[in-house]
């Protein structure tokens, strides 16, 4: 059972709870179990474009080191997992992609 520590924005899914013990052999299975317990939290943890990767801008630290295999990072029985902001960022309004332009396209 890994111990998970959540950053403050993520605590809105847990009723303010900052840490909890959650089972999981990998970060992905841990996130699955977190989602079962706290519905909606996975949407803030998992990259919507790639279910094997963390949300861009979010970092996971496993046993003191960055989770360099993303959600596939293996966990030990007593691992400690921190989800923390990896970068400063902010978002772009609307959440929807802006219309793209080809910029003149390719040669030929």
């Amino acid at each position, binding site marked *: 059972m890994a111990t998970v520590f959540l950053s403050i924005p993520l605590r809105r899914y847990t009723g303010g709870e900052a840490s909890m013990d959650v089972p999981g052999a990998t970060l992905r299975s841990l996130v699955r179990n977190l989602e079962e317990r706290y519905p909606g939290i996975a949407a803030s943890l998992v990259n919507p474009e790639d279910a094997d990767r963390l949300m861009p801008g979010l970092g996971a630290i496993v046993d003191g*080191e960055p989770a360099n295999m993303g959600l596939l990072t293996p966990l030990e029985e007593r691992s400690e997992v921190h989800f923390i902001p990896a970068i400063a960022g*902010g978002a*772009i309004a609307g959440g929807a992609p802006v219309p793209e332009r080809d910029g003149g396209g390719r040669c030929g």
Partner: protein
Amino acid sequence: MSTTADRPAQEFKVVGSRPVRHDGVDKVLGRAQYGADVKLSGLIHGAVLRSPYAHAVIKKVDVSRAEAAPGVFAAITGNDMPVTAPRLVDMMEEVTNLKWASERVMAHGKAVYRGHPVAAVAAVDQNTALEALKLIEVEYEPLEAVISLEDAMKPDAVIIHDDLVGDHLGEKVPHTNIAEHTRTEFGDPEAAFAEAAHVLERTYTIARAHQGYIEPHSSTAFWSPDDKISVWTTTQAPFGVRSSMAAVLKVPLSDVRVVPTEIGGGFGGKIGLYMEPLAAVLSRKSGRPVKITMDRKSVFDATGPGPGGQVTAKMGVDKDGKIVAATATIRYMAGAYPGSSISAATAGIFACYKVPNVRIDAYDVVINMSKTAAYRAPGTPQATFASESLVSELCETIGMDPMEFHLLNAAEEGTRRPDGPVFPRIGNVACMEAIHNSDHFKSELGESPDGKLRGRGFASGYWNGGGNRSSVTISVNDDGVVSLVEGNPDIGGTRTTIAMQAAEVFGLPAHDVHPTVVDTDSVGYNDLTAGSRTTYASGQAAIEAARQVVEEIKKRVAMIWETEPENVSFEDSVFQNKVAPDQRFTFKEAAGKLGQTGGPVSKTGAVNVRGSGGGSFAAHLCDVEVDPETGKVQILRYTAAQDAGKAVHPSYVEGQFQGGAAQGIGWALNEEYYTSPDGVMQNASFLDYRMPTALDLPMIDAIVVEVPNTNHPFGVRGIGETSIVPPAPAVGNAIADAIGVRMYQTPMNPSRIMEALANKRNGKNGHQG
């Protein structure tokens, strides 16, 4: 120079020695090819028209006259650039939103920093291109520039990006310049402060400072008729440039080949895209390869320095001087687009200490100046100026020796870093003890013969360092010399340190391993040269490749000896048949037999390694002399101790300690952007942007501490960045010791020193900025 280790080290033959660098001759003779040295058949030259306003709507850009001018091949504006959807791309020390990365390289309708590219031309030579820029007509509608934290954060602030939605503790906030507000919290700081014997709170202001690399940015691109793009550029991140170029130009990733040139310094400032996409689009329009080289003014105006900002730090201690709580509010100015390393600042600000109750708020704020970039331990020197200055003043308040305070409260194995993770085995205490045992620490400060004021300051610092992905390919030549192909541009002697780790496995002299940095089509993926990762992570790829080579050669000599590979040992560069010990081949002899035993041996080590084992700590000691009549500060003596885990090439390690200390001293004493109220930098040249030279500094003594990193087979830690973290507070604490008044703002230049001395005479405490 000296080395200190906390236990007997592994036995090494190559690692720990000081061979001449492989690229030394080329660099000494001027043969090394830097960005501006690129010459291609049919090459033409680009120039960029930059916004004279820090904030303006671009109502019209007309390049028709420029395009028609003699000798001009092409002209482009924002309309020629693809519009990119917002998407985050992780480049390790920087995470880039592609829409903003695209807008940063060429304005799309609005200029948001002075120097923002508005148009570009390509012509037969650079003078023609520069003249053509004068023919471009641009109609601007100037807007109020936002260039300070106060203006950016006030409730009725002018908003720089209408489409920016801030993330404030998880709440989505539109119409703001605060891109992000984060908070880290453990325990109950307020309750602990209430119980503390002493509490001190101070606010510190840190100027933005440029990396100051000698080589300006230079990029050449050729967009060939078959839609393959080749880019020669001075970058720390060739694979990052490849992926960003592909995304910004909306072309397949594998159609972009990036050739990293030699790099004349980067320090984090050569990670992102600048002119590469502009050169590529000009090339597509002209059909020629196009080179664009920045002048120094453009480097200052339009590339990323480290962020400036303001840090309020508070610390409480019990009656014995033990820390009971600490809080901080970090506000960094990211420049024109979000992203100012506030997470690294949060990790680093109190990392040297055991802090049982902590809260750290951090704000990432956009302003109308060029987007900041990573700068050596991004975000951490600024935050540490606050925390280590506060600790020094707190020690003064409670009458405790700073070294005693540091050792009493020092983070060690098992300590929880204030942002959460628990430290493994680290060298924090060992670095302080190295300073404590140094000749410098034991020496007397002495009196100035001419009435100047002397003082001594101490500070510690931390940087985590990264691991991640690296690929190295090793091939064995018939003569037993090994070629090593890697993909990390060499900014700190990493060709040699990577080659030395392979040589250690082979038992060969370092110069029998020939390293080459190649383009993105010629080696497997490599994360960038940054984050103190290259010697640590790419070194492990080299070790992995070398071990595979040894195993393959064991099979080959087993074939010759008609035995099983398991019966072949390899030690001290000799293969030996364990069953028939008389059968031996040196590595070089075995290399000559590869052709007849199955052909060439070439192996690739491809790794994704964990972080740098708790990072690298440093402790710095600084003596200064202050002239009370002019405010000039002279560094008299400086010692930097830092944990290298295992120093692969001690001379390069010492060089990193010295270089980081020199940059940190410059940040402390002189470096800043003098900016007019409308956002124009007034000192955009090396004449006026005052970096320290050899004439300004004493010899910086380096003490290499070696507390092995268990994440690396040889114990190596990444060491390139920590050395810039302690200097500003070490210098500031020394100044305070000398003049009896605290400095709360960088740079601590003569005018501020004089102001502080005047405040002291008037009964005020220090310079409040």
